[in-house]
């Protein structure tokens, strides 16, 4: 899923400062799962903002609404009436959701309320970890299912750097060294040969360095 984190309230206050009537629009998919922008977070943020604005002596009208998915037109539509009757929209979706709204409602400022951070998994309750950077050419098959492009701080393809110690990454002792994990996993899988093989430079063209990507599924176009 896409993992994100709500912006600090002080920053949100600055972002919405120019408006008197705003809609906080949540998204019921990824950001709900990571407690950044689902219905509950919309409600909590709205109350907090109302309170904070009152304290500051600022008049503001805050409306709340949550759609199932902000990155799809079909779901955005449900929010259209609420969006149209406000001066601005504070979106609690990921960056894709914010842009999907901006594309649809060109005349209304769509403001981000969430810092979108990564594609990750729920490691345990309340803990999310980054796993994939969407490189467009998945090589997990040779790395034992652990992505070095994303989880090694140096994107190393050919084994651990000299700073890997006690299974932890030199860059952050809280983070597992991706290469330690890869080696352990390949050992279990009996695929240690993968470690001996030279991995040539990655072709980044399929990634973001080739510019923004587009996926066309001819078979699904109607």
């Amino acid at each position, binding site marked *: 899923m896409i993992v994100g984190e709500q912006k600090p309230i002080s920053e949100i206050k600055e972002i919405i400062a120019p408006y008197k009537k705003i809609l906080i629009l949540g998204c019921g998919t990824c950001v709900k799962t990571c407690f950044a922008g689902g219905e509950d977070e919309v409600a909590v943020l709205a109350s907090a903002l109302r309170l904070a604005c009152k304290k500051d002596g600022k008049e503001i009208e805050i409306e709340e609404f949550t759609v199932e998915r902000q990155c799809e037109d079909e779901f955005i539509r449900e929010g259209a009436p609420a969006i149209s009757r406000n001066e601005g929209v504070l979106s609690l979706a990921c960056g894709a959701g914010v842009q999907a709204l901006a594309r649809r409602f060109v005349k209304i400022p769509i403001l981000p309320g969430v810092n979108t951070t990564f594609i990750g998994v729920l490691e345990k309750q309340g803990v999310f970890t980054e796993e994939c950077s969407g490189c467009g050419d998945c090589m997990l098959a040779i790395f034992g299912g652990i992505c070095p492009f994303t989880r090694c701080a140096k994107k190393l393809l050919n084994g651990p*750097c000299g*700073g*890997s110690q006690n299974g932890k990454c*030199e*860059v952050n002792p809280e983070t597992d060294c991706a290469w330690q994990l890869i080696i352990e996993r390949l050992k279990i899988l009996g695929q240690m040969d993968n470690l001996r093989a*030279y991995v040539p*430079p990655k072709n980044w063209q399929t990634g973001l360095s080739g510019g923004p990507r587009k996926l066309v599924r001819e078979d699904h176009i109607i």
Partner: protein
Amino acid sequence: MNMKASGKLQEILSKGEFAVTAECGPPRGANSEIVRKKGELLKGYVDAVNVTDNQTAIVRMSSIAACTHLLQMGLEPVMQMVTRDRNRIALQSDIMGAYSLGITNILCLSGDHQSFGSQPDALNVFDIDSMNLIRTVQTMREQGKDMSGFELKGPPAMFIGAAANPFADPFEYRVIRLAKKIDAGADFIQTQCIYNIDRFKEWIKMAREEGLTEKVHILGGVTPLKSAGMAKFMNNKVAGMDVPESLIKRIAGVPKEEAVKEGLKICQETIAQLREIKGVHGIHIMAIEWEEIVGEIVEEAGLLPRP
């Protein structure tokens, strides 16, 4: 090792003589005098001078420029190159540029992560890794081609170095990684600073058993300790460093004013042991910002005169 590069370091190593190199960190500024001063301190005592590339991710004079200053003084530089700051286009271009200036040795590294440096807000590149860089320099030399397969006009023929850290984890993988670096094209290997000689011996024994010490020249890294504080700092704070408790205790056990002397004594003992180990072809002295001590260390070790 089908080599066309021809520098002193390569010559000494291929003759089977014991090589001595030292490290030189460029200044945080454009004053070439500082480089020359360091060069003067090392001249006559070492076979080549290894010039760091924005070491510990702190912005400094470029390695190529500092190497060039040393070259002009008649010293042979080893240019370090990290993949942290440049993509493959810039790396290849700088390799050709460096060779055109007369730099014939390169040490291929991934580099310290920028979060350790003075500008942690920088974007890192890591387009390719150190293994890929080694292979790139080798392909340029052996096939005369760049990474795209383009035939170069006057391909650079560098003598290729790589790093190895026998003290990092996972230990059993360290020899596999060494083998990979040799396959990719490394001619010589510079190791992390050696304090835990037992672990080093274990590592090199594994390398010998795989026949690796026959295929590559290994230079053992040494750094004289100045105090118990430094020993502890290296052990706890420097990634991939292993200073055994017994050494820390030994330095802590002498009066403060004797610590430097004790550190140098340990350094001499390490060098003496390294010279006895089969498969070690030289030493690399990393006296960080203490270049004036290098001459003394080499002399004391009986490694003078240099060829």
